[in-house]
């Protein structure tokens, strides 16, 4: 009797966890696959009967036949749908890239302001964060496009800021450099500067290891690159000329014109995301315990050194993961461009191309595939970076 231990009695199969586990997995897989097949077969028959088309991507080679407001690469309506898709993709990249840079800068400033001991400064940051975190991005974007940029004066009466920068309801005209023939040579010189800078940084690091006093490696690296660049700029015959915008008739000429839609999208994304990044930065800095700061001070580090060598490296570990998801959000949020007429990936592919060709399946596959790979790529890169700066436990 005593040998029959409780665990040796097999429960009936309907209460056996292993049997139940296998059974429930089969059930779930069956339901999911079944639903998938059901939808798929509906789609295929629907496509064949209603539209008499089969899924194919060959239409991408046909002429697009529509214009796109702005493009980073050469594009005209005779070019293919695929080319139009790439134009949209590059526009998304452009706005996401610039948005991430500026939102990070603004977010760090506001996050640090939030922690300021100055009451007013900290209040201003808190109000900024509370306002923009609680307004839908889409409302902000449309407000920015329709109530700010559209209400700017006409070009003829444009607001002129020093630069000159022309603010008008067509967008913003800024001075822009035009590369001359020697631009290529200048880039080579600059490359050489980077190599030299890296050598200097390596030398300084070795020296720092020997003496135990780490010099400001990044600063010296930048100084070296800048010095070489400056020499190159002076020696070479004008690698770049400055093209300044000026008013001519009803439009501005020259310079670079950032369209009203682009500016509205970019500024909306920056202002919105910066509020979230500020919170991430604040939480990161606050996560470093007070003892660390006190210990650093008692070791004789000055406040700037404490921030650079003690607080910041530790805060970064807390900051990176949520910052990554903010970057991903910004990239995905740039798809709201469709609301204000900026031709990003989704506006071009999900709206214009889709309406012209009626190829829903193909276009949505391409759009979602693109966003998905963008997201996975970003998180991959950030994970690698995160692993490098992670706390190495004993």
């Amino acid at each position, binding site marked *: 009797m005593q040998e029959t231990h409780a665990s040796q009695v097999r429960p009936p199969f309907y209460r056996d*966890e292993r049997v139940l*586990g296998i059974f*429930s*997995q*089969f059930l*779930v*897989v069956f339901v*999911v696959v079944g639903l998938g097949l059901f*939808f798929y077969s*509906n*789609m295929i*028959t*629907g*496509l064949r*009967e209603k539209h008499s088309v089969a899924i194919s991507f060959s239409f991408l080679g046909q002429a697009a036949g529509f214009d796109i407001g702005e493009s980073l690469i050469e594009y005209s309506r005779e070019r293919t749908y695929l080319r139009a898709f790439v134009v949209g993709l590059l526009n998304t990249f452009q706005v996401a890239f610039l948005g991430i840079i500026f939102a990070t800068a603004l977010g760090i400033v506001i996050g640090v302001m939030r922690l*300021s*001991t*100055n*009451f*007013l*400064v900290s209040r*201003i940051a808190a109000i900024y964060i*509370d*306002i923009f*975190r*609680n*307004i*839908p*991005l*889409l*409302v*902000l974007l*449309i*407000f920015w496009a*329709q*109530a700010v940029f*559209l*209400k700017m004066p006409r070009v003829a009466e444009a607001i002129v800021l020093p630069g000159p920068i022309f603010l008008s309801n067509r967008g913003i005209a800024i001075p822009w450099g035009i590369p001359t023939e020697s631009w290529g040579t200048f880039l080579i010189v600059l490359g050489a500067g980077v190599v030299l800078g890296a050598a200097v940084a390596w030398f300084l690091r070795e020296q720092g290891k020997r003496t135990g006093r780490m010099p400001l490696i990044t600063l010296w690296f930048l100084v070296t690159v800048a010095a070489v660049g400056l020499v190159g700029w002076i020696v070479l015959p004008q690698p770049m000329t400055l093209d300044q915008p000026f008013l001519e008739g009803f439009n501005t000429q020259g310079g670079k014109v950032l369209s009203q839609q682009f500016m509205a999208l970019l500024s909306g994304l920056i202002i919105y995301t910066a509020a979230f990044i500020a919170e991430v930065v604040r939480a990161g800095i606050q996560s470093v315990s007070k003892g660390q700061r006190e210990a650093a001070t008692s070791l004789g580090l000055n406040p700037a050194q404490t921030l650079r060598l003690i607080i910041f490296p530790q805060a970064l570990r807390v900051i990176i993961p949520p910052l990554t998801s903010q970057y991903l959000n910004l990239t*995905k*949020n740039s*798809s*709201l461009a*469709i*609301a204000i007429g900026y031709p990003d990936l*989704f506006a071009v592919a*999900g709206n214009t191309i*889709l309406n012209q060709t009626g190829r*829903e*399946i193909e276009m*949505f596959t391409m*759009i*979602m595939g693109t*966003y*998905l790979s*963008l*997201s*996975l790529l970003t998180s991959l890169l950030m994970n690698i970076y995160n692993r490098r700066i992670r706390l190495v436990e004993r």
Partner: protein
Amino acid sequence: MTTVAGTPSDRSVLPITERYTVLGWVRRNLFSDLFNSLLTLVALAFIVFIARLLLRWAFFTAEWGVIPANFNLIMRGQYPATEAWRLWLVIHLLGGVVGITWRLISGQFSGAARILIAIPFVLMLIPFFSMGTRLNLLIAAAAAGAGFYIAGHMPIQRRGRAAAYLLLAYLVVMLILLRGIGAEEGPMPPVQPILWGGLLLSLLLAFFGITLSFPLGVLLALGRQSKLPAIRVISVIYIEFIRGVPLISLLFMGQVMLQLFLPDGFPLVDRVLRALVAITLFSAAYTAENVRGGLQSISRGQYEAAQALGLSTYQSTMHIILPQALRAVIPVLVGQFISLFKDTTLVALVGIFDLLGIARTILANPDWLGTQQEVYAIIAVLFWIFSYSMSYASRRIEQRLGVGER
């Protein structure tokens, strides 16, 4: 003598007391050194600049006439005016339900309750409201008071459960009232969801989006943590796929492609419902990730203890693991709900007239050309009020539960 300050033992015991005078406070916080003083001056200049800009705009430039003229549109969209009494009834009932639930759950007339009951009275002060509107608000406030009083005098045993049943019943009644029932000529003719609009629709989308996506998200989170490989893989694929694409692509897919997936002859699914499905599926993936964070914070000991007590997987999940896991992630979940509420604005891009969609139709009206600043400002303020109250409430709950305090 203990009054002799100066002995080392006394100094170590007595805390440093700081006396604050107004000037002292200003000195310490604003003008402690040269840099701080400069910062204060710059900040002051900035505040004055912004405040002047805003006030001048609000009181001199802006033409607020567009708001009272379109107030009904902003609130309820195309919902027929003859049926507006149903919406008021929903609000009156809401007042009653809030009163009863408050008594059942909190039990007392505390600070937050005062704020809640003040809302209708504050709204009554809005200058352009008609007498009827004010009366209706008064009824809602009275219903809340009555509910609070009555619930206090009822012998209810299981208060939490009673409140849950009441909310469920309210939900059903609300839907019937909104949607209508019976014939076209009856007392409550049906109103198609596509006619619902404005703030009403935004709130409904958010409410149903939250209530539907939450259980789905919890299931997905459990699925992702499950020991069963097939369930885990399916959950991971779903979550990562949804989180990798923008909501707008799902909404467009819902509008353009949903009908393709359904069999021939399947009735056309309502546009609003399609949008709600897209929002729910989208939000569930994010909720799942948040809940997973909570699940991961539960120590192994809890699982093992539950098992040792002989609880089944279902029992331990429902009674031991989930309550702790969800409590740990309340702030994150509320943040997710707020972003869902804000994301409902995206339905305006697929031709549904939520608050933002209605704003666009108002601006398309030639009578109100050029009032973008006023209309969008009001829309933004409305959204802000609701999201900010949610985040404020979550902070209060957090404090009460002591989450995040170590």
